[in-house]
């Protein structure tokens, strides 16, 4: 059986900057695949290529056997791909529940006319989905923050809301860009726990970028290391961590915990 996501020879440049070059890897179903690398190595760019935010200059990307190139961004959610953003992509004026509820957007049907006239089917759908949202809010412990515009919440909470929104999309492939950057130890541990729960409960395949090595080591099944857009290592976390190229390019001599 072929991998859920297959990336082959992907390359993209911006002006003179070659952000990705000959990147290839497979992500197996229900695995957690991590991408690391120095700043500007092209990790976020890779995510952007996978989610139709950029169109790669070269290469192919296949998901569930079909190509992801040329897919429109708005169709990704329906295909089972969800992502979070390095700089947070919350809807600032909406509260936690509304943000998460927006994750249900493509699972819902109601259009303008139905919404305006509040047909019974519309109400039912709304209630059902609000129920799902309540579960997620509960899972992530977001209850205390309902009713406050997300922009006013603490960073750690906002990261959780964004994760919740991605979860609400019930994705097959979840892309997380630096989920624990800016979080303290406790929150990091909690995020790790949540990711485990997600994997256990929903069998979601996860693609993850992170600089926190401790966090990664405990979670990742496989790790891809990029430098200046090129893959320099790919393998199990323990092996990658010992790779001298990786140490030279990324980890440096001593590894802060």
């Amino acid at each position, binding site marked *: 059986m072929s991998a859920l996501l297959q990336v082959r020879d992907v390359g993209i440049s911006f002006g003179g900057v070659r952000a990705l070059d000959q990147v290839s890897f497979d992500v197996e179903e229900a695995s957690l695949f991590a991408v690391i690398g120095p700043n500007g190595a092209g990790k976020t760019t890779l995510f952007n290529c996978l*989610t139709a*935010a950029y169109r790669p200059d070269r290469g192919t990307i296949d998901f569930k056997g079909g190509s992801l190139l040329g897919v429109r*961004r*708005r*169709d*990704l*959610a*329906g295909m089972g791909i*969800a*992502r979070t*953003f390095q700089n947070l*992509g*919350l*809807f*600032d*004026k*909406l*509260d936690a529940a*509304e943000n998460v*509820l*927006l*994750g249900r*957007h*493509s699972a*819902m*049907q*109601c*259009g*303008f006319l*139905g*919404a*305006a*006239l*509040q047909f019974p089917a*519309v109400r039912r*759908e*709304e209630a059902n989905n609000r129920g799902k949202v309540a579960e997620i809010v509960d899972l992530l412990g977001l209850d*205390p*923050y*309902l*009713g*406050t*515009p997300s*922009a*006013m*919440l603490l960073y750690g909470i906002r990261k959780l809301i964004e994760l919740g*929104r991605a979860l609400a*999309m019930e994705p097959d492939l979840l892309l997380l860009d630096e989920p624990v950057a800016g979080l303290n130890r406790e929150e990091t541990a909690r995020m790790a726990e949540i990711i485990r729960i997600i994997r256990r409960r929903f069998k979601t395949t996860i693609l993850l970028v992170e600089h926190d090595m401790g966090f990664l080591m405990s979670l990742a099944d496989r790790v891809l290391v990029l430098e200046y857009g090129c893959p320099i290592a790919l393998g199990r976390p323990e092996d990658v961590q010992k790779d001298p190229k990786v140490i030279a390019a990324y980890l440096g001599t001593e590894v802060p915990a």
Partner: protein
Amino acid sequence: MSSAETAAVTARRMPSLSMPVLLAVCYVALPFVLGNSFWLQVSVYAGIAAIGAIGLNLLTGNTGQVSLGHPFFLGAGAYAAGVFGQDWGLPFWIWLPGAGLVGFGLGALVGPFALRLRGNYLVMVTFALVFIGLHIFSNWSAVTGGAAGRGISVPVAIGPIDFADLFGATRDQCYFWLVWGIVGISAWLVFNIINSRPGRALMAIRDRELTAEFVGIDVSHMKIAAFAISSAVAAVAGALYGAYVQYVSPVEWNLLLGIQYIAMIIVGGIGSVAGGVIGAVVITFLPHLMREVAGSLPFVAVNQSDGGLITVFALNQILFGVLIVFFLVVAPGGLARAVSAAAGRLSAPRRHK
């Protein structure tokens, strides 16, 4: 993050129960209280403006697409009423929705422009729309009467119920009920939209367009829909305006009107249905109230030749400008928020500490 955003969240919550009762009482009683006075007519204008503001708020407040182009759609609605209701002699229940449809179509035509443009540039395209509209309105004489304008006398009766003559009430009283009834209906419809899937999608686009696409929102479709619906509502307001005033000419649909509508939603409260209505009432009444006040000040003259430091008009304009700035600075969340904050200390939104 300013507390203006809390307002946006609170304002979307349903008002408590005593409010609707109070509003219903006002709706029925005000035309009697105001009698056949000038203020009743101003209230009718306020109602018409409220409908337009509800439409604009959906587009600008909820979808984040700032538009100065509202006059174009208001005008189109008025002329549509003239053509459907007068030239073609269609009944009320056809010409009014018909005007809405015309607005809908025009909005859908203009909407795609918004897809490529953001921020100031979008504002400027809608700004240009006003002038292009003026050009069309002054040249398409068959429909608009050209620069000279046209009369609009249209029926406002649904079957046996004639809104120009309800149980012996005056025309103004009837129009009050008609217009404010439509305010209520539009408010209800738009409120429902805002609080459902499509409305949330619009707000997502406003807050972060790119992310909106990632949750599966068809941004182009939604933006065009927002333009179309907002324009449809505006056209209904324009049609009612034409029917009430009975004469319109192109110069009315000018930039100033567009600015006034923006002022309404800012003063009332951006992104809240009640805000649009409150803003419309305030902006419509303000100049007339100020005229009352200013006229009785000692250093103010009715016109320039009478001496006095300043004319009523100049003072009026100055106060108007000052008040708008005042609202912006002092009540950035708009009056809707100020009102709900004053009224709703009990049901204040939960906030973490």
